[in-house]
């Protein structure tokens, strides 16, 4: 019955219920329980998405929105309850409009970073990238998840680079957020010089903040506008090695405080090795050469004086580094910073960089401030010995966000997915570690899987309010049940 109704909406070729397909969506690479969906539907446009949601409301069918291709890692795309339909938005792949003057791209949810970057480059623009996303990652998916971008000074607010969106709420109502919210069609708005660039509102609500970080529980986005950056005419990159993380954090503070405009993040040696090479042996070899910590930065030359921009930023950065007693390098152990910069402008090559070392991984990330990251590194290190998780198999990624006012702190727990004991060890470790991190003030702003209990146990007021808001936008609770606090 469900199938028939859905076929009427999207056409029979886009509704799937073959067990093979259902199995694919029943689980991902996280430790979340396996729950098989009832079917998969792949709409082509807003109208179809809206009709699917309206249908689901009538039939009380849970819907799980997905825009990225596999593999999935965080459990947010796996049904939380039985009988769900996966709404796979990956067919919606249009890059609707690129506005080189205002530096905006309007895209559909199925567009990946690789696709977007290629198109933007034609207009001398580039996307704000997270750290080497997997090839199948949806740009809108990543943005809505508040995945941090690697250029912290251009990250003014946690929702960046997200501007406006068209969304179908859980009620089945269509809405356009920010400047996009009417009147007229988008095309008519363009005629008036309205390019859906301003994210505020509409009116007394910031709707875009309710759909980002929501894991698809409030609405499904059918297009979004994103702010983009100029494509650099000339770029430079540097690596800053250090055995201690503290001086790098100081440098990170200086960089963000004075708004140097390029990329900046800190990795431990293992993660840098994972970014750069594919084979575990090579990774091991490299990480043994590397110092404990490496700060990566770039200087982006665009605008009317690109060369001068890069020169001034690099020189100032070197002065800042000097004040922290650090020595920026063009390359370390044969790894050229400029080569890494090129790598960072595209999605990860296959295999995804986090799968290269041991095949499996689990991320543990949260928000804190840069000055507190050593405390968490220490905590994780202590816990790893307590739980027998090899500390040398933990990657670390520290990304200043919101112009340096906080940072994304990520531990990547690498394990062999074919070893039951490693799986079990990782499971246990990640659960305990998340509790410890929360107890030490780490903030699970984006709670996936098991972290949600930890996060919400410390956010009772937020939980109560989110439930009320959910009641407004998705009163029947059809959107991604089981996620967040729903």
């Amino acid at each position, binding site marked *: 019955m469900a199938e028939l109704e859905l076929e009427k909406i999207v056409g029979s070729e886009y509704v799937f219920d073959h067990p093979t397909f259902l199995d694919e969506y029943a689980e991902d690479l996280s430790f979340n329980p396996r729950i098989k969906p009832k079917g998969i539907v792949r709409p082509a446009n807003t109208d179809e998405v809206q009709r699917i949601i309206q249908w689901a409301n009538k039939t009380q069918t849970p819907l799980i929105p997905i825009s990225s291709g596999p593999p999935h890692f965080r459990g947010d795309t796996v049904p939380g309850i039985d009988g769900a339909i996966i709404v796979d938005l990956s067919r919606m792949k249009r890059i609707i409009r690129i506005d080189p003057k*205002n530096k905006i791209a309007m895209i559909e949810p199925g567009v990946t970073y690789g696709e977007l970057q290629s198109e933007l480059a034609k207009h001398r623009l580039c996307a704000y990238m997270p750290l080497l996303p997997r090839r199948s990652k949806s740009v809108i998916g990543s943005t809505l998840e508040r995945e941090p971008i690697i250029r912290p000074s*251009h990250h*003014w607010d*946690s929702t960046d680079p997200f501007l406006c969106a068209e969304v179908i709420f859980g009620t089945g*109502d269509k809405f356009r957020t920010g400047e996009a*919210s*009417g009147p*007229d069609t988008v095309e008519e708005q363009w005629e*008036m*010089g*309205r*390019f859906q*660039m*301003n*994210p*505020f*509102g*509409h*009116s*007394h*609500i*910031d709707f875009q*903040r*309710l*759909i*980002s*970080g*929501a894991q698809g529980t*409030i609405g499904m986005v059918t297009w979004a506008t994103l702010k983009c950056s100029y494509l650099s005419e000339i770029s430079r990159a540097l690596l800053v090695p250090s055995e201690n993380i503290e001086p790098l954090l100081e440098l990170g503070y200086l960089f963000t*405080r004075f*708004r140097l405009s390029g990329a900046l993040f800190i990795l431990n040696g293992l993660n840098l090795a994972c970014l750069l090479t594919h084979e575990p042996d090579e990774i091991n070899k490299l990480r043994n050469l590397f110092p404990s910590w490496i700060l990566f930065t770039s200087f982006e030359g665009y*605008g*009317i*004086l690109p060369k*001068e921009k890069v*020169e*001034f930023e690099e020189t*100032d950065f070197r*002065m800042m580094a000097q004040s922290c007693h650090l020595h920026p390098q063009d390359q370390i152990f044969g790894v050229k910073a400029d080569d890494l910069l090129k790598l960072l402008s595209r999605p990860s090559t296959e295999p995804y960089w986090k799968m290269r070392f041991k095949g499996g991984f689990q991320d543990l990330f949260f*928000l804190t*401030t840069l000055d507190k990251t050593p405390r968490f590194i220490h905590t994780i290190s202590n816990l790893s010995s307590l739980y027998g998780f090899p500390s040398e198999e933990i990657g670390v990624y520290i990304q200043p966000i*919101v*112009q340096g*006012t*906080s940072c994304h702190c990520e531990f990547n727990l690498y394990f062999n997915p074919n070893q039951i004991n490693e799986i079990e060890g990782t499971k246990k470790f990640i659960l305990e570690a998340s509790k410890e991190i*929360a107890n030490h*003030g780490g*903030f*699970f*702003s*984006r*709670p996936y899987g098991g972290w949600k209990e930890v*996060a919400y146990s410390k956010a*009772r007021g937020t939980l109560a309010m989110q439930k*009320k*808001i959910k*009641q*407004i*936008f998705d009163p029947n609770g059809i959107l991604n049940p089981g996620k*967040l606090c729903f």
Partner: protein
Amino acid sequence: MKLPKEAYQALEDIVGPEYITQEPEILDTYNQVWGNKFFFDEKHSVRPSAVLLPATTEEIQAIVRVCNQYQILFKAFSSGFEYLSLSLLHGKGILLDLRRMNRILEIDAKNMRAVVEPYVSVYRLQLEAAKFGLYTGRIGVGYSAGVIAAECCHHGCQHTMVFTSGYGRNVLGVEWVLPTGEVLRMGTGENGEDLFSADGPGFSLRGILRGRTGANGGHGIITKASVKLYPWYGPPEWEQTKQPGEVLSLGQLDDVLNGYKVFIPTFRNLDDTLEAAAEFCRAEILYALGIGIIGAEVIPEGNDEHWAMIQKMQNADPDQREGLDLFKNSVVLVIGGQSQREIEYKEKVIMAITEKWGGSFLPQYNNQRSLARAFADIIWSTGVNLRATGDFLPSSSSPDGSPDMLKRLALLEGKVKEKYEKSGAFMPVGSIEKRMVSWRPEEHLSIGAQGISTAIYDPFDPFSLKAAREFINELFDPRSQFKRFGIPSRGGCLQIEPVTHVHQNWGHLYDHYDVWLRKIKKMLDPNTVADWTAYIPPDYPDYPKEGDYVLPSYGKEENNF
């Protein structure tokens, strides 16, 4: 009206007799503010039943609970310099004057944030933050604006937003007394941690905090907020001085502060000016930008002195008169840098872009005194523009969007305004023939800019007032040409829903945003005790009638009981 005795007693028990009043002499000082005459047809809006001066969040919670118990409207404010912050729907309402909550609780220099209480003004925070090499942007209502009001509660925009953003984008944490009396602490604050993120877990409750417009007290009271700070390149202290015998308004900096430079290029025509301005913004070099807004000239002592200056200029020779129009094609550019190298780079960019668009640096603007004056004006404030006629109307819908849109809107609106200026109802800004266009860029123009224009009128001059109302109605008729441009919030978001019915008239044009907003209002405020005059009612009343956009339905105390 008087509150029921037991309700008053309950409130008095919370704050103590010294900090509550129902004396009419005092109450009537909480309902007279600029703009009232335009909106309510008299200087007085509704007289509150009582005014309270709470000192803590706990007191506010308790007050709000009493309001729920006795069905009393409440609204809180800090500086109170806006009719939005003092207007009440009806007389069974109280105001909470938050001036006793005036602490800067924290400045975390490293993580660039400040945590403040409601009565901390923007300028006070600027002065304190400068000691740590930090800065908080300004908004357009002058020095006394509250930080929390600006960031969490009201609409406000200004020239520093190119660098410091605004509209709630700087909020890192909030303590919010909901209309039910519960306290919501967003994000990290809920767990007693440092207030560095208000987002999550999960979707951000900042989504219902303020939007673009600010809830203006319509959904509770913000008692504490953590806000982002930005680099301050200048010295930790500075002095604006004047010569003995000079009036205070002549006080100014001797020079642009170290760490900053100011340039005022002038271009040949409007198109070049706006294109150049956009390029300056997108070059990511600016600390502040003002188009056609040059505070480089001496601030006149008063209106009569100003009038004398104008007359002198009007009597000047044609060349000089031509010079008067130049300011409309001039742009104030402020750059700052942590190193000489940074400043030099930014200066080179300014020179290159100026040359590209055929601009030049006129000596009358680009001299030490004028540049220092322009710097202080654009970085802090010179106050509020109410001297000339006693009032002004932020007349456009003040939308945000692309520079192209804002230019079209300004020119269109200018045409409408022209007839009122020619008739003498509005004070012309610049010459009528050469229309000025100005917008305020946000975040290096990466998310657009805010357009604004004002009608300077005298609300106590019947001719001028009538014109102002006609003008606004023409602009805000949902059937008019203006509807397509942006946000239907009358007068720079200074709208009073019971009078203007903006949500009611315009909501359907804008994807029915008002339906969601009313649901949120109902959810947050089940007993409708948070005054919604500058927010939205849970349910619309029967009016308005077709074509009737200013109804004399508000401002009478006897209404709505």
